[in-house]
């Protein structure tokens, strides 16, 4: 059977800067794959190449058997099958919560008003913000906004959900609500590709973890292996930083990236 997502030799450059240097991996239907890695390693770029918010320089992206990188593909139609959740929510501030979840259903899927509203309310209830239908996004907490954003994507009945650090912009006490929605989604069998720094979430929910650094996949496998017993020094260094940030400086020798990130002790 075909993979839900298949990425082959994916390259992406911004001008002279090569951000993705040949990425290969697959996600099977119903799988949750978490992508981890240091800042600037190309995780967001990878995700954005999957739904073609960025045009890959080279390589193939296939979702549900349709090659998105084929120049003749109807990209708007293809994107309808993928939901994306952004770090900064990106709700439409001029529309109410309900309208946020309805507008693409109405304009893209051409659903009738009643049907769209029913589906919107169902999804908002599912993520626990059903009571906020008539509020405008800026009146909501970050955690609520992100859950509305998830409902907005789900209302389009996607085959695959992409999450780009969905909890990174949230206050710590709001992270749990969003993660539990994502956990439920995974349990219901949604295929998910999640960029995250939440290691405990990755360990618990992911079927596979992909560690990226410098535009390539360094290591991938089951979470217990990649997070629990990493094979590569770069993975170990990264995990040490994430899991124990106060002792990050101990590893300056471990990689060039680290040396650049830590400012000199002068001043």
């Amino acid at each position: 059977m075909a993979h839900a997502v298949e990425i082959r030799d994916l390259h992406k450059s911004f001008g002279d800067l090569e951000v993705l240097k040949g990425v290969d991996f697959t996600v099977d239907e119903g799988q949750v794959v978490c992508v981890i890695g240091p800042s600037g390693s190309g995780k967001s770029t990878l995700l954005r190449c999957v739904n073609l918010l960025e045009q890959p320089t080279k390589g193939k992206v296939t979702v549900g058997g349709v090659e998105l990188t084929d120049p003749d593909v109807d990209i708007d139609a293809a994107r309808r099958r993928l939901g994306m959740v952004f770090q900064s929510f990106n709700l439409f501030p001029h529309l109410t919560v309900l309208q946020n979840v309805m507008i693409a259903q109405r304009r893209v899927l051409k659903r009738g008003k009643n049907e769209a509203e029913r589906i919107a309310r169902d999804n908002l209830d599912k993520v626990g913000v059903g009571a906020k239908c008539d509020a405008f996004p800026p009146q909501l907490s970050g955690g609520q906004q992100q859950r509305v954003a998830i409902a907005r994507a789900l209302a389009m009945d996607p085959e695959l959900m992409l999450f780009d650090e969905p909890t990174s912009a949230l206050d710590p006490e709001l992270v749990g609500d969003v993660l539990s929605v994502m956990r439920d989604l995974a349990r219901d069998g949604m295929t998910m590709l999640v960029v995250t720094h939440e290691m405990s979430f990755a360990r618990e929910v992911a079927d596979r973890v992909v560690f990226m650094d410098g535009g390539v996949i360094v290591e991938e496998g089951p979470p217990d292996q990649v997070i629990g017993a990493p094979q590569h020094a770069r993975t170990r260094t990264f995990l040490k930083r994430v899991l124990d940030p106060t002792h990050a400086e101990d590893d300056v020798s471990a990689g060039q990236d680290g040396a650049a990130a830590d400012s000199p002790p002068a001043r």
Partner: protein
Amino acid sequence: MADQSMTAEPAGPAGRAPGGSRLSPRKKQRISRGVQYVILIAAVVAVAFLTNWQGLAQNFAKMDVARQAFPDVFTVALRNTIIYTVGGFVFGSLGGLLLALMRLSSVRPYRWIAIVYIEIFRGLPALLIFLLILFLPLALPGFEVPGGTYGQGVLGLTIVSSAYMAETLRAGLQAVPKGQTEAARSLGMSHSRAMISVVIPQAIRIVIPPTTNQFVSLLKDSSLVLFLGVSGEYVELTKFGNDLASTTSNATPILVVGLTYLLVTIPLGYLAGRLETRQAKGR
């Protein structure tokens, strides 16, 4: 601590200001303000004595002349001013939106056309554009601006305002965060659908205050319709005031017309300010 030393100083022995100077800062300030008032009063008295009040009143505030201006100053002149302005504003906004979208287009020739248009018509005096319209039939024989006199006036104001609106709207469109388009596209919306449903509605909200100011300046520019040689039922405020001032050999109609402009422009300017602060707070 700092507070204590501050309050302690004035409480100390009088005249013991820091630096050994004779006057405390507060006293200096009081004297300075006193001097300013004296100068103001002197100026007012001088103007009051030197002005020929009688002559001024005769020329600028003659009641029977002022009476002649009513009700036509409102029913004809102001009405026409508003027709010209609103017409120019509506068509200018549509043209400006089109130009702004062309300016941001990925098709290079569209960008060029928009840039050339915007640069030319923002750079020319509005009066020159009206003169151009006046001479248009000479250049293009048989050509007639649809809508007659109203059409000509509205066309002139449309040409002017579309160039300014284009730049305002472009700024507004660019002020909508890129994530908004990305969210819309990731939901499967086409580029134009994302523009119509997500970006343009937000851009319009952003540009409402500057646009209100543009409406005010368009209202003032509508006075240039005077140069189209309009008459009778088509006159707007400035032409109306000018004509009545000529026939009565008196400047009072100018004053009446001026006050009529202010009746509209001041509230609108105030409104624009309110909208601006409201938006600043909403951010």
